[in-house]
């Protein structure tokens, strides 16, 4: 994907604001001018939970405007619980911006963004960039229930067409958001972020539709900067996204593991060896 290295570093951000968007879904705004200035759509940060006693955690950069950035996250375990305890005025150590981000260089005119659950946190910036460039942007947004479809009005206000789906039918289609995508008018490009099963489904819909798709993958991270090889995904061995590594032969097929944190988190669906 996009290969220009962005100037990243470790920043002491200050919390500006905090909102609970739903039960256990938190949005925190922070001040970190140098970080925000260089953030590209689809990049993320490694955030150090306040106690410093648990590992740092990867979070997408939701907003990046002026000197303010924000994080939108689900409280699921120790680290996100600690981060959810942050209040305006508190400090927060952030390393980033990290990762490649979405590749919008083809200047696409009609884009489908597919977000599942917390995947919404990584797709506001690409949506804004595409809209600013005059593209049509449809947001296909799925969650377990209506409550968890946080920030959907925000995307409408930005100018997206928003298509919803919920597991329980409490908003939009009942079922998977990829079913809605399948039935919709094919876009020129798909960008997707969400749980792995959803991304697999997006990849297969994209293949059926003959549309190229960029998927933002998730995995447990340790370092977030490519140092531990803990977060890999298998690519086809000839992938243009493969890191410097001699292709290996095995069982007649050709595969290479790329680091989601470094070569990703965004990969072309057709290059994944899923």
């Amino acid at each position: 994907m996009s290969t220009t290295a962005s100037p990243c570093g470790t920043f002491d951000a200050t919390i500006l604001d905090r909102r609970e968007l739903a039960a256990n879904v938190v949005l925190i705004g922070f001040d970190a001018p140098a970080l925000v200035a260089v953030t590209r759509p689809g990049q993320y940060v490694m955030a150090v939970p306040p106690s410093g006693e648990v590992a740092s955690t990867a979070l997408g950069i939701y907003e990046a405007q002026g000197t303010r950035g924000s994080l939108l996250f689900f409280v699921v375990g120790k680290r996100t619980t600690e981060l959810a305890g942050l209040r305006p005025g508190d400090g927060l150590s952030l390393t980033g911006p990290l990762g490649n981000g979405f590749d919008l260089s083809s200047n696409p005119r009609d884009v489908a963004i597919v977000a599942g659950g917390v995947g919404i946190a990584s797709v506001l910036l690409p949506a804004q960039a595409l809209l600013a460039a005059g593209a049509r942007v449809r947001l296909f947004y799925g969650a377990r229930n209506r409550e968890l479809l946080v920030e959907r009005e925000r995307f409408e206000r930005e100018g997206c067409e928003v298509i919803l789906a919920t597991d329980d039918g409490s908003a939009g289609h009942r079922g998977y958001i990829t079913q809605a995508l399948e039935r919709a008018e094919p876009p020129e490009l798909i960008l997707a972020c969400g749980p792995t099963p959803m991304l697999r489904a997006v990849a297969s819909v994209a293949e059926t539709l003959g549309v190229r798709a960029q998927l933002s993958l998730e995995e447990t991270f340790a370092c977030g900067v490519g140092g531990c090889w803990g977060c890999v995904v298998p690519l086809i061995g000839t992938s243009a996204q493969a890191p410097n590594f001699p292709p290996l032969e095995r069982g007649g097929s050709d595969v290479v593991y790329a680091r989601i944190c470094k070569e990703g988190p965004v990969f072309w669906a057709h290059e994944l060896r899923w």
Partner: protein
Amino acid sequence: MVSASGLHDIDLTTKIGSLTLAYPTLMGSGCYGSGEEFAPFVDLAKIGAVVLKSVTRHPRLGNPTPRLVHTPAGMLNAIGLQNPGIEWYLEHDVAKFAGRPCTIVGSVAGFSVDDYAYVCELLGQRSEIAAIELNISCPNVASEGETFACDPRLTGKVVRAAREVTDKTLIVKLSPNVTDIASIAREAQSAGADALAVINTVRGMAIDVETWRPRLGNVTGGLSGPAIRPIAVLAVYEVARAVTIPIIGQGGIETTSDALEFFLAGASAVSIGTANFTDPRVPVRIVEELRAYLAQRNLRSLSSIVGRANVGFANAQQYEGDEG
């Protein structure tokens, strides 16, 4: 009391075989990738040495994912020695350090004595490499959990083979997953090791109780981080009493106080692994704080505290336990 301006007179150098480290903190193997990834965050010249990710004779894909699990005060990893093989490694990962002002230690893993010797010989010829660490203790690759470092005889064999093919400083990395680490350490020393790295990760496992599957693709993995620090301090303490060569202590070091435990237990230098994932500046910060610690105590060199843990009973007036 050493004056603040005298802080830089304090001698923090450490001799490891023929190599003199300017600083006693290293970046542990496998936690710094090819050494390059952390360069934006920390000045590699201010670190004693960067130990590169272990390399093998042939390229290795490594283990299936997931490869990482967070556990209480630590993490399990099962990377499985993913690496491009020695050939590519020399051409790319080693060559890029030519002429750069940092100390690079190569780490070698293998599956046979021949493999180790082959890779050591090639690495040993490279001027970019200041020393070689033999990783004979990776818990994530052998079938039955058996590694070279679990058997004194195999340890002796592989160290002798490496010693024959290189004059570079040879560090042997030991496993805590043994009944008696001191006997392995003695064997490594008598086979020609210049120093010992103590410890590699502790074998462990975690199970997802929703899916009933192991949380690591490789089923088992290696535990690192603060959780294992007491295990590592003891291993260093026991090894220090068994050998005369320097020890590079590691396992759960996050702060200067943690590092001091290792120095007092007998380590001449320390490696930082997991803690770098939270903050890669840890090794540099420890160096600064060590200076202040020594200055406060009017000590002029780090070596004056190595192995100085006083193991007389903590409370001498007190009645002693009655075991044999």
